[in-house]
């Protein structure tokens, strides 16, 4: 019999709340974490707003050893360490034991190295000062830096895997951890993703002209998924982490269970049939969602809430259409759908994990978080689904099952099905 997998711990570093309690309050109240940043004006960016966590770097002293903290740099790394270790302790575990924990692994993703850290290396080397780089920079710029810090701090001895699948990274990382437990490879997995959109990555997206540029004077209005006035995404940053656990193992140690992961799917449209480097192909997306529903062993009608990718670009309309076709539901029969990005922007790799934390919280606390800035829904979307599916205020509702999907550059798709634990 297939093993069941449950969520027993969560951690989050989000632009609208650091730590699960603050984040829960923010998503209930529809609090925006988007702020104006004068640096972006100085750098001549079109878009000059972003979602950055109010992160106190010094707090990391409580997360890593004093020696490790000395010389630590890189915000994505800091976010990831905090989210993962918070999730670990939230699940009732201690940090810093002497023995290797062989039955527990980690899948944690990110999109790019922190360019601000990398820049310091470039500057040193170009100034013929490579000798002064020291022993710490490699561990902080390697793609597996976050998993190395997390697993080292916790003593994890199972699979330690750093992943990267653009904006599908977080969702995919959670799916991989889920699969390792379901197939019996691991008993527990620390899963999640982290991202810091530094000015270099931000600038490159800005140049693609896919960022929101018309709301620089009203930052909290700038991220507008599914709105008629949506005109690009707002970069966000942060990290989310979950502790996934074999159900019997969790019950055995008396762990608190937040929710169950019923299943999921991950695929690619192959950059064919309308798919490209930057756009998802509908056949791939539809197939991914259908496969996730099948894998979870549920009927499409059982889905009570969709946590969309929905970045506030022209792709939102197509995404809603894909959900309608994949679930064979539309109009009034479509479930409520929300986009956390309306509050925190699009944190690329971190989006999937932060949104998954939100999905689990909505199951635990039985509510649907609002879509802020959706006073003017796109008519193209309203042609497919009922306006009642687009809550603009927090809605108390029985939430048993949530579908969470993200789609990334390279035409990669990932979808998870979370459920109330019974």
């Amino acid at each position, binding site marked *: 019999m297939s093993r069941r997998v449950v969520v027993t711990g969560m951690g989050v570093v989000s632009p609208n709340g650091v730590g699960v309690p603050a984040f829960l309050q923010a998503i209930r109240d529809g609090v925006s974490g988007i702020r104006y940043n004068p640096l972006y004006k100085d750098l001549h960016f079109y878009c000059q707003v972003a979602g950055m966590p109010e992160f106190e770097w010094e707090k990391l002293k409580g997360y890593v050893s004093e*020696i490790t903290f000395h010389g630590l740099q890189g915000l994505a790394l800091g976010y990831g360490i905090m989210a993962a270790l918070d999730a670990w302790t939230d699940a009732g575990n201690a940090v810093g034991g002497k023995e290797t924990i062989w039955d527990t692994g980690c899948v944690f993703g990110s999109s790019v190295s922190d360019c601000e850290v990398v820049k310091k290396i470039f500057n040193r080397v170009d100034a013929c000062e490579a*000798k*002064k780089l020291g022993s710490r920079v490699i561990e902080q710029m390697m793609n597996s830096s976050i998993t190395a810090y997390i697993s080292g701090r916790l003593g994890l001895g199972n699979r330690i895997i750093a992943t990267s699948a653009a904006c599908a990274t977080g969702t995919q990382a959670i799916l991989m951890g889920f699969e390792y437990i379901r197939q019996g490879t691991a008993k527990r997995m620390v899963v999640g993703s982290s991202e810091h959109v530094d000015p270099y990555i931000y600038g490159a997206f800005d140049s693609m002209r896919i960022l929101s540029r018309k709301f620089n004077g009203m930052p909290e209005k700038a991220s507008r998924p599914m709105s008629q006035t949506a005109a690009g995404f707002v970069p966000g940053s942060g990290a989310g982490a979950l502790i996934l656990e074999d159900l019997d193992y969790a019950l055995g140690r008396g762990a608190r269970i937040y929710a169950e992961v019923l299943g999921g799917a991950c695929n690619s449209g192959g950059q064919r049939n309308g798919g490209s480097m930057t756009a998802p192909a509908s056949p791939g997306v539809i197939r991914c969602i259908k496969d996730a529903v099948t894998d979870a062993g549920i009927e499409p009608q059982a889905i009570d809430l969709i946590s969309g990718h929905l970045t506030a670009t022209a792709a939102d309309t197509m995404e809603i259409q894909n959900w309608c076709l994949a679930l064979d539901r539309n109009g009034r029969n479509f479930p409520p759908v929300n986009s956390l990005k309306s509050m925190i922007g699009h944190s690329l790799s971190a989006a999937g994990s932060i949104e998954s934390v939100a999905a689990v919280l909505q199951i635990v606390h039985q509510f649907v978080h609002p879509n802020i800035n959706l006073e003017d829904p796109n008519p193209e979307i309203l042609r497919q689904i009922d306006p009642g599916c687009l809550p603009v205020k927090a809605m108390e509702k029985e939430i048993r099952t949530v579908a969470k999907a993200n789609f990334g550059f390279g035409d990669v798709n990932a979808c998870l099905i979370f459920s109330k634990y019974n």
Partner: protein
Amino acid sequence: MERRAILEELKKVLYPYTENKELLENIDEHTSLVKDLKINSANLVDIIIDAEAKYSIEIDFDSAEKIITVGDCINAISEKIA
């Protein structure tokens, strides 16, 4: 600079790399950085880089290779600032 004075200064350089700070109190020239102070051997290069910056000197690769004890550190530094 006297060797004793360099040793006192060296304690400050070693401080961020030494987990058990109490061990630093009683170091002498025979104290091994890795064995006695439990410093991660990868951090030896950071200690050398910090010492170079502190005294505005350059400790060459071969001298750095020979550093095992506190006394070796003092030798490398005193040679350059002499």
